[in-house]
């Protein structure tokens, strides 16, 4: 854990409310992106980001760094908030994020995100939730495997393995015309 992060947590636990601001500043954009890539909707992402930090604030006093990293803890709160958000609305399914819903499901999405994801969306949907998360953290959130391993609670090596296998899966799933399209684009 970053030493400034540690200091901020200890400071907060010792009664300095402003210490939370340092943690917030360090993580707010990252948490928002993490949630946005699971919801594709700005208002929803803002709402869940707020809830994540509110819950973190309420729980930080009893947070124990020996049991895990702060980032793992914070991202877990964010992930659970996303899960809760969709499960409340679609209680009949086992849903982790918007990727587990079919594209025809009646959920709010930003048009821009929908357009951007047009080509790749259905292939990403076929991946296991955990595998998809690692791909997104690596490619969209641009995190190192070390950071990813802290967030998903796996070793760096197994994150790398999952990433590699997921790409293989994608390669298998993507139809030849689409791959040709990519290759033509590259020429």
């Amino acid at each position, binding site marked *: 854990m970053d030493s400034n992060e540690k200091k901020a947590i200890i400071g907060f636990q010792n009664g300095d409310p402003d210490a939370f601001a340092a943690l*917030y500043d360090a993580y707010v954009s990252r948490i928002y992106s993490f949630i946005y890539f699971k919801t594709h909707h700005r208002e929803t992402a803002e709402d869940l980001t*707020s809830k994540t930090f509110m819950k973190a604030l309420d729980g930080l006093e009893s947070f124990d760094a020996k049991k895990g990293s702060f980032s793992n803890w914070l991202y877990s709160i964010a992930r659970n908030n996303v899960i809760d958000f969709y499960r409340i609305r679609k209680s009949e399914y086992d849903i982790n994020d918007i990727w587990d819903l079919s594209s025809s499901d009646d959920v709010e999405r930003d048009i821009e995100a929908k357009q951007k994801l047009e080509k790749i969306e259905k292939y990403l949907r076929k991946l296991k939730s955990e595998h998809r998360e690692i791909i997104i953290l690596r490619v969209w959130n641009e995190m190192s495997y070390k950071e990813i391993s802290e967030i998903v609670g796996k070793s760096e090596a197994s994150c790398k393995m999952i*990433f590699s296998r997921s*790409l293989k899966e994608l390669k298998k799933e993507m139809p030849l015309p689409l791959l040709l399209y990519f290759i033509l684009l590259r020429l």
Partner: protein
Amino acid sequence: MDKKIQKILEDIYDIDESMRAREAEIAKIVEELIRSKPIAKIDDDFVRRLRSELLLRASGRETKIAVQSNFSIFGAGSKLVYSFMGAMIAVILLVPIFFYRADLSPRRLAIEEGNNGRTALNASVTKISDNAFGSFLPGDIQKAGPSGLGVGGGGGSATGNATGDAAQKQAGMPIYETTNYRYVYKGRDIASLSDNVEVYARVKNDTLRRDLADTFKGANMALLDMNKFENLNVNSVSFSEDRDFGYEVNLSPLDGSTNIYMNWLKWPDPYAPCAQAGCPESMYLKLADIPEDAEILSIADDFLETYGINVSSYGKGSVLRNFLDQYPRPLEAQADIFIPDSISVLYPLKIEGKNVYDSSGEPDGIFVDVSIRYKKVSGARNIYYQNFQSSGYAAETDAKSIIAYAEKGGLYGEYVYENATKTQDVELGDPSLELVKIWRYDNDKRMGEEFYVPSFIFPILNKPEGFFYRKNVVVPAVKEMLGNASDISSADK
């Protein structure tokens, strides 16, 4: 090949060297993944707002109320919740949530005892970057707040009409006397002007609004399915006490305000017998019925304390007897003085120790109405969430410009008749620099926003007789609010 893609591929080859043979295909997939990345740009306003809310909450975390965990009853499987029970629980939850978030919680106040056992919660002010509230150009400033406070105030505008003279003459009607007022500064030189002032804005608590909405969202209400509504926010909720002399409480998370009124159904109606034969003279209140200030203040103070309304950001209460100003003295000699049923006590708001005034230059704060007839509080208004942000703005440093603006009527200007029958000078005294509540209309959000702007309040020294209600002229100290003082003409106002 892009370095980012190259790095991703190298990581893959570390795991599975055989993938190298498929580099072209894999690289294209990665490339497409990158290309498909949705834009997740976080809104700066949201970041600032949430930061303020969190810091406020952090500063008061010792009295957490376990609200979040209660929400789960509306979570997964919520459709099984009996709708009636859901609604009732939701209502029970709303009060603590609001009061906790609004820093008015009696529980919290009980912990933070201050002077003489009174509650002592401090307002929070978060300093943010300069000019953070956007521009305050003259065209953006609303000429009146939503409550209508401080509107105009001069010139007999209730009946005057600049173009009506000719029509009146033609109709043979007597010409209505119209007066133009000319403001003349009679004070001393204004010195020691600062080149920067802090403007304050109340932080809106949008999280609270969504949390409250979520309380209902999971519940399948008896009349409709709340789940079908999207992006719900709670703007206001009302509660009423079912008891004699009970109250109605209106919470408005939209603007962070609370107002308390008498529940009309539970208070006696002294005028009920009047419907048949008119009110007997004995029913009307008399000057002697008004209690002494000490008694009125004691009733108001007790009410605030009983209901845990925090007044630590406010000055001491004072009884507003200004409704008597219109009567000649001595008051005891006047036969027809109308005494209202209630008299107000004002607890003036202070932000960082500075007094706050409304846009007409009158003190602003919590108003507690005390029923003269029943010696009970009949209402409390203007109770606001005290979480502010402050941002620096360039101030007007030219005293001549400030005086010129004041002489043109200040913030709300002065209506000028084309063919006024007379002109009267209104003298302005030495100004004081205070915080004044000013509204700006945000075209994008399509709503007004409230700001507390350092402003010069010029007292009117010689109030003209007749329809002239102003007591002050207000001039904002923020330079851009004044525009170009030389361009200000009465016609613009």
